[in-house]
């Protein structure tokens, strides 16, 4: 059976007979661990044991913290090695004379072999550097891409998808901003959509950033808009940004990233921010009774502006605007920092970096299909995806797996490059 989506028969005939038509979009990290990674894991585990031993004698918070960071790797390695040793034990049993024992060993071996793959992946994943914002809540911004009203209507659908996903999963979220433009509501696919200008969903659970970071990028839609009279399918795009946000309680902040600390990525000097309010042209005060409460903040060094008018309370609008401004500035600074790191490494891997420009997912209404372009996953039952149902879970899960694999690949390449550099140095020294 063909695994590809659809191939024209002529093309099949034109191809060499024995060619397999496989989609090769997904990348598979090797199940058996590459030696460089294993070496690195062993080094880390050794360091962890040393630290743990020294901690037993006298407690030092710094050492304890470092040990805590390393324990993830050390534990994963321990489990993996245990599985490995049981495999080798079972293999010796397999040579045994007793037929019953051999059968038992065979059953056990297949189970353990399956387990060892997942353990190896877990071990490599534990070696990848953890995202500095992984434990933070996040802001999810939805904006229409270029492409007229249709993009705006679909942006509303995407925004609702994430809102319903959160409510189904019991994730605490609130709408920070929801701005629409002029235009009637349109109803496509049984739900009414308003033309969206910009919407921001604040997801308050800790670790939400890690959960949603794979959603950032361009989401493409292919459908016949309700406004279209001649039934042509339109393609438009919606941009989703995921920004790290701040926990309500500052003490929950991971990595000591306090926004009052000037060294933090999120530090914003209040003097650099210009605040603008709606000014009454007339006398103001008791003379008028205006209900506008819009606030606009401009961060002058970067030119980032945030305007907020959702709440009747100016106070609340200002708070929301500051949350959004801090997150945007933090994300921008982080991107700059990573850009530098990539330039330094001069690596081919950077081409896989997820940027805002990359198309990550397609929602095709006429084929009732949602495709994730990174993991290569195709799912049907599009209405369930757009309702934030369990099908969306599957899509998000596949994205997450893809991200982990990507990280592991990067790590392997880095380790190999380091090893090669070290070997080169050693060879040079040897020559002298």
């Amino acid at each position, binding site marked *: 059976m063909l695994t590809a989506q659809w191939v024209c028969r002529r093309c099949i005939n034109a191809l060499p007979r024995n060619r397999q038509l496989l989609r090769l979009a997904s990348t598979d990290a090797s199940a058996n661990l590459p030696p460089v990674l294993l070496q690195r894991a062993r080094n880390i585990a050794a360091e962890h044991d040393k630290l743990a031993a020294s901690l037993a004698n006298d407690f030092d918070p710094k050492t304890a913290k470092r040990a805590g960071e390393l324990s993830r790797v050390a534990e994963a390695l321990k489990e993996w090695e245990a599985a490995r040793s049981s495999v080798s034990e079972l293999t010796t049993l397999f040579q045994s004379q007793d037929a019953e024992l051999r059968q038992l060993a065979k059953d056990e071996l297949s189970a353990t072999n399956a387990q060892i793959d997942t353990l190896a992946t877990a071990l490599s994943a534990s070696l990848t550097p953890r995202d500095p914002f992984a434990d933070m809540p996040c802001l999810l911004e939805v904006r229409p891409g270029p492409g007229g009203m249709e993009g705006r209507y679909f942006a509303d659908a995407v925004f609702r998808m994430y809102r319903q996903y959160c409510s189904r999963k019991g994730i605490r979220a609130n709408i920070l901003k929801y701005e629409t433009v*002029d235009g009637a509501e349109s109803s496509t696919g049984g739900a009414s959509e308003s033309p969206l200008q910009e919407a921001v969903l604040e997801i308050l659970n800790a670790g939400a950033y890690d959960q949603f970071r794979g959603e950032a990028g361009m989401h493409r839609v292919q459908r016949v808009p309700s406004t279209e009279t001649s039934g042509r399918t339109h393609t438009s795009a919606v941009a989703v940004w995921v920004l790290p946000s701040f926990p309500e309680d500052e003490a929950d902040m991971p990595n000591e990233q306090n926004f009052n600390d000037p060294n933090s990525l999120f530090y914003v000097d209040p003097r650099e921010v210009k605040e603008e309010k709606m000014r009454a042209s007339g006398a*103001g*005060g*008791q003379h008028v*009774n205006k*209900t506008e409460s819009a606030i606009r903040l401009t961060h002058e060094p970067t030119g980032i502006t945030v305007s907020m008018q959702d*709440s*009747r309370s100016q*106070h609340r609008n200002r708070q929301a605007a500051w949350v959004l401004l801090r997150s945007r500035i933090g994300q921008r600074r982080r991107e700059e920092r990573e850009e530098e790191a990539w330039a330094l490494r001069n690596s081919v891997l950077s081409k896989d970096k997820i940027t805002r420009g990359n198309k990550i997912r397609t929602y095709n209404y006429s084929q009732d299909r949602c495709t994730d372009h990174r993991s290569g996953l195709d799912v049907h039952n599009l209405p369930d995806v757009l309702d934030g149902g369990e099908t969306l879970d599957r899509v998000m899960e596949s994205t997450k797996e893809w991200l982990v694999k990507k990280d592991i690949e990067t790590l392997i390449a880095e380790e190999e490059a380091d090893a090669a550099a070290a070997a080169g140095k050693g060879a040079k020294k040897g020559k002298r």
Partner: protein
Amino acid sequence: MPRLSFSLFWRAHRVSPHLATLLPVCRDLISARNELRWIRQHVVDLMSHTSGKTRTSPQTKNAQIALLTRLCRRRGIGVPLQYVLGSQPFGNLDIKCRPGVLIPRPETEAWVTHLADIACRHTDTNRAGGAANLRVLDLCLGSGCIGLLLHSLLERQFPRLSVRGFDVESDAVVLARQNLVHNTRRGLLHNPNDSILFLDADIFDPAWLASLVRHGGREHGRMRRGPVVDVLVSNPPYISTRGFDRDTERSVRNYEPKRALVPPPKPAIADGKPEDVFYVRLLEILEVLRSRFAVFEVGDLEQARRVAEMAIRQFEGVGAGVVKVEIWRDWPDMQPEEHEVDSMEISGLQIPVKGSGNGRAVFIRRAT
């Protein structure tokens, strides 16, 4: 008011008929859209609160639509949104509003926040006794917003904070008390052993002032020359009769209480303008109470100048440098625009004018 173009109504109507209803009052689509959203939110909150069910049955749906239509129509003929919805956010508080009592303004919120900052910064927290105790007096309290917001902003810094508010209108005092209960219940305010008290009184009554001084002195344990009240705030009526007819917005003129906007004619004050009568009395009260900080809201920069001048004249006797006068604009924290002056010469003194916008408040600080 310029006439709104028909196409604008048409565009609004295409989005929602309610938007077109709101347009004559809001004057543009953006604010009409915002107000419609707030009214809608209010209706949904109200209905879910009363029925307590999450699923909406067709009956509640119809009731919601009927209520929405009614509220939009009321707003459309010019009733202030705050009276339609029955509340107005003020700082972090939620202030209930009712016809007959002045609606809290955002400019008031701005100067109250600024005053709370100053009171925090300029009070020596290390000094024993004096710091934990701060007495605030709010005259012409209306909905009680100023006193309540000051309490909410200062209660952490001053554990023994007390707020007293007076108004001549008993309706206003009742509403202010309701606001106190409402915000305490929502956890936005803490009112241990009645540190906030709102009472009926006519501030022009000499007997009231005498009792206030007596009460303040007794509360202090011993009679001394220190302040009876630390912070005196007021948002009195300050619009002239002519200004009321010409400069006020229609919804203000038609629906808000005139008594809270225009001072009643008082024959006792011979010199000065009739709209300044409250400031004359407030400055007298300030002299008696010897407050460290006082803020009076004013109508514009010209009135601010007159009030500042009166204050300087009133406190000429106490010695140079003891009393400092400042004028605050609408947004005292913001950078001034280029055309806005940052100081004024009044009676030979340079008076700083802080912030951006219209002249909004006169701040008087007295060194102790």
